[in-house]
């Protein structure tokens, strides 16, 4: 046991507990910076939604609520499989860990696929901001602002998903090699925290972009 502990604890830590607590605190602090990072965008959304409520409601109706809801369900399911993967890592059960990580990645990939399809659709319909923007309705410039925010917010979220998939792929390889167990599973835990955070961002994005003001 003691020999195992020495093998997984970096030279500057006293114990596996200290190492794990440092890693998890570090991850939480990092997530705080992420909240502030997305916070700037959410602030811009709130300001402009307040300034142009009708244009934003009209533009919001252009989004596909079926695809949006499907994606929400996919991400929530992936959070469940992620939590199960963390549990498997803590118990040192290799096969469930690999299976749940693979499932999480699969669900995340389907989410991104649907998102790409939605983006493609918006490009074809001329709803991407810029010279080719076409929107039939009053306050077209303000609707364009909605789509600026839509692409900026969902794009940044999708980028975080891609990074998350990369992190999970590394965890999958390490997990398959049996690197995680009761003494050492902080990487999977931290990856899990990150994945849940990305989910939560979507939980805020979905109502703000797809639902609010839709029936106004």
């Amino acid at each position, binding site marked *: 046991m003691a020999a195992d502990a020495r093998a997984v604890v970096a030279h*500057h830590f006293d114990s596996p507990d200290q190492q794990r607590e*440092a890693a998890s605190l570090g991850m939480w602090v990092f997530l705080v910076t992420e909240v502030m990072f997305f916070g700037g965008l959410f602030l811009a959304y709130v300001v402009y939604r307040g300034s142009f409520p009708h244009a934003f409601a009209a533009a919001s109706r252009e989004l596909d609520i079926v695809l949006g809801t499907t994606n929400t369900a996919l991400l929530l399911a992936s959070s469940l499989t992620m939590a199960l993967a963390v549990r498997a890592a803590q118990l040192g059960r290799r096969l469930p860990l690999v299976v749940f990580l693979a499932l999480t990645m699969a669900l995340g990939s389907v989410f991104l696929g649907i998102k790409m399809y939605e983006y493609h659709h918006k490009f074809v319909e001329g709803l991407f901001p810029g010279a080719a923007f076409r929107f039939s309705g009053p306050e077209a410039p303000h609707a364009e602002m909605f789509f600026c925010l839509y692409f900026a917010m969902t794009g940044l979220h999708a980028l975080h998903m891609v990074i998350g998939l990369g992190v999970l792929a590394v965890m999958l390889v390490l997990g398959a090699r049996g690197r995680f167990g009761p003494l050492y599973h902080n990487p999977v835990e931290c990856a899990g925290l990150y994945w849940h955070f990305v989910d939560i961002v979507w939980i805020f994005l979905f109502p703000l972009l797809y639902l609010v003001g839709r029936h106004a």
Partner: protein
Amino acid sequence: MHGIMMIFFFLIPSIPAVLGNFLIPIMVGARDLAFPRLNLFSWYLFNIAGLFTIWALVHGGVDTGWTFYTPYSTRYSNTHVIATALGIFIAGFSSILTGLNFVVTIHRMRAPGLGWFRLPLFVWSLYATSLIFILGTPVLAITLLLLAAERVFRIGIFDPSLGGDPLLFQHLFWFYSHPAVYIMVLPAMGVVSEIVPAFARKKIFGYRFIAYASVALAVLGFLVWAHHMFVAGMSIYAATVFSALSMLVAVPSAVKVFNWTATLYQGSISWDTPMLYALGFIGLFTMGGLTGVMLATLGIDVHVHDTYFIIAHFHYIMVGGAIMGYLGGLHYWWPKITGKLYPRFWSRISAMVIFIGFNVTFFPQFILGYLGMPRRYHAYPPEFQVLNVMSSAGATILGVGYLIPLIYFIWSMRYGRHASSNPWGVVGLEWETTSPPPTENFETPPVVTRGPYEYSRPEEVADGR
């Protein structure tokens, strides 16, 4: 470009990166920071960021100033806005990782017996600085990202033709960039809080109040950003609130200054080089701080807005405060970092040359600004000639003052005498290990049994314990 280089690539990283990375683990009695590889990564990021910015500088610079106000930066400027913004964006990640590393280290890596109120005040001030790194820097990052998206992809969050609001950009920018001022000056305050008790040979006065004042500055710093925008067209009611909040910043600042002077009272003061810098800091920071209260007053701010008065004010805080603190800290811990002593005579001369040069450079600018000379113009009416020449002459003195330490520091690394483990005869964990410290900082992990600055037990200090 002067502002971008000095703020993002010198003042912000100077004390946290140079002194903090070295001292924080030692002062908390740890073998290293919590995440050493992350620390190295942030150093790489900083260099990459510097390359981007220097590339932009060499290829013609950027004409938006360090504030990048839209829509000029997004639509009209033909200079290298993207490369510079990218440089600052990457440097921001370096800041964030450093702040994260400090917070985790201070929370999780403290030696046995080292409670929060036994931490040196330098650690407290860098903890407060790290909070700003963590909460402020990401907001600047997203702001610059949106600016770049608007410039490249025409995703116009701030574009007035889509109903976008340039004021929103200014709010987001200053939400980081005002707290950034405290990123620059808080670490210097931490250095002064170490040097003053060390060279007055006296326990610091009001330890807890100085510690709380550091945190208070970090918190208040986030509530005052719009005082940079009094003439930008925002609501007069908001301006009044921000004016009042800005004046509140004077309270924790004054708490610190009064506590330092109370520490000096009846102390056994020795006029070593670090102490000269620390005393210079206290005087110049007080000047900068008091003119800051003047500027927080709505009426005065509108009168002297965009004049040399502002320039003089923030250089008193940034150069007179942050750089004096940085140089003081460098002189204080140089023997510990390198294990070598620098010449006492020349270092004291340089401290005085810098103090004189600084005042000759920037004091005339207070007068010029008050008389109405605007910033960012190279021409001025003939009656301002004398003060402008005086300011330029002072800058030359200041430059000479900065060159002297460069020469003797390099000289000392090769020819300097070896420093003992405690050359100043002061207390503190960093003086209980060898100069320079071994790779894991201590031969045997320390156990802390008392608070910092215990100068009331001279027999222990004399032993070098």
